[in-house]
């Protein structure tokens, strides 16, 4: 009885949570998709999201992985508790508020903005500001998840390799990384979903170049709900496969 109940419960839960996705897919007409695909602005939004997203994810993983390791390994438990509490603030910061703060910081007349202008970087309404916004939205998610992955791994694995003569770098590559990889992959998947769906901050600092979420907003304003829903399907297709694939890879890794 209990197993049947659990199965039924799981099925109901999944249906409830997947309902918006199912409606979205059911309501999407191929014709609408094809029309949207032939609009250059939509294709441009897709390219913008993919390019900026790839750069952002690369930056987040490259900076966040060593940062998470340093937090987990070089700090005492009590200071890790404090830092965890502090990092919850950027995690919970409403994206729109983040966008306003970034606009305030990066505006062309501000010191940071004019400095960037001297370097030849357009500080707002540019690929640069879109990437900054996406990195800020995705980084806390990546860092906290990857940090938890390193913390959950007993330090003894690394310590014993160190005490038998292996360097820090060797131990990271040979011991730490293979064990923490699946957790870091989950962290990257979460960051990717956040990056491709980033809307609140980009609408303030990166209306142009337009990424998919902002393009959906424009479609809703200009053409109404059906167009917006069809574009949303494209965003879903862009945002979900990476997390799902990475999650599958992780299970695949575990089974070995």
């Amino acid at each position, binding site marked *: 009885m209990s197993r049947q109940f659990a199965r039924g419960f799981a099925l109901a839960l999944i249906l409830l949570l997947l309902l918006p996705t199912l409606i979205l897919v059911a309501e999407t007409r191929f014709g609408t998709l094809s029309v949207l695909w032939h609009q250059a602005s939509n294709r441009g939004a897709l390219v913008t999201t993919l390019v900026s997203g790839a750069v952002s994810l690369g930056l987040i993983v490259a900076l966040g992985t060593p940062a998470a390791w340093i937090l987990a390994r070089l700090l005492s438990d009590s200071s890790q508790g404090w830092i965890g509490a502090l990092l919850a603030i950027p995690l919970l910061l409403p994206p729109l508020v983040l966008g306003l703060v970034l606009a305030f910081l990066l505006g062309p007349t501000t010191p940071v903005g004019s400095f960037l202008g001297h370097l030849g970087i357009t500080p707002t309404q540019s690929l640069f500001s879109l990437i900054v916004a996406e990195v800020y939205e995705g980084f806390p998610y990546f860092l906290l998840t990857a940090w938890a992955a390193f913390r959950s791994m007993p330090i003894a694995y690394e310590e*014993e390799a160190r*005490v038998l003569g*292996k360097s820090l770098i060797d131990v990271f590559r040979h011991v730490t990384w293979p064990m923490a990889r699946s957790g870091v992959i989950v962290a990257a998947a979460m960051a990717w979903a956040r990056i491709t769906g980033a809307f609140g901050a980009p609408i303030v600092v990166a209306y142009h170049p337009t990424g998919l979420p902002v393009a959906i907003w424009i479609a809703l304003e200009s053409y109404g709900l059906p167009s917006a829903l069809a574009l949303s399907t494209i965003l879903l297709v862009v945002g979900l496969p990476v997390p799902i694939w990475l999650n599958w890879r992780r299970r695949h890794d575990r089974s070995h």
Partner: protein
Amino acid sequence: MTDPIRLSRWSEFSPGMIHGVFGPSGAGKTTWLRHIIGLDQVPAQYPKEVAFLSQNPHLIPHDTIRQQVLWFGDPESLLRWAPILDLSETLLDRYPGELSGGQYQRAALLRVLVTERPILVLDEPLSQIEDSRRFTILETLRTYITTVHPDRLIILSSHHWDDLWLVSDTLSLREPGFRSGPHPTATVYRNPPTPGFARLFGYVASIPCPQGGYWLVHPMSLTLESHHGPGITLQGTFQAARVGASVRQWVFHCEEPHIRLRWPGLPALIGTSLPNHIRLVDPPWVPYRLPPTQEEETP
């Protein structure tokens, strides 16, 4: 072995010897070993001359035993040590998760031995290993350190007296709030510094000495026949006591002093005629009384 400060940490341990660290569980043996290596410092020190085997080893889960052993040492060392530790070719190609507790511990010991470092610090290396293999390994370690590499040294901790008293040249004793040594093992054995260590060394009772202090009784120092040499004779009666379905004990009631000696054994060895006296061969003298255990107090 270049830094004189580091070297001074090991100066009390002579090369070519096995140095035992003995004490009950929770006596701070691990804490002390980690301290003399420098693992408790911030940041931790990993001295190049030391190979350390943790009491609770963590083998790399995604490497086979052979892969990780070859990561830490060379193939010749692997060939030399694997047969001694009874790790077959099949076992070497397994992952740590596929090993039993004893195999896991032997694999961890192999990983430490192949580093061929001059100071081996082994924290409870044999706790999971069955007796027959344990003594082979200890014997090999002894030969290795006394004959093959007398320039090296081994520090070995255990809470099993049997692991240490035959193979270690010196002993350091650890009890909560108490530390002594290293001293030569034979000296320590005849001079247990506390009643707690006297029990751990296998002494079962104490007998008041007319000149003051006490003699310690060890089952191995008792004889039933007359024995020429130093010793004392105790008059009394024997009893064979059953403690369970299969466990039996000797019980010997001494008349004077009024004392009961009790130790595990097979009363059948005595035969039908129980002697009315036993001889205690060359008993060690200590200033304290060895209090009876709880079971001895109950009538």
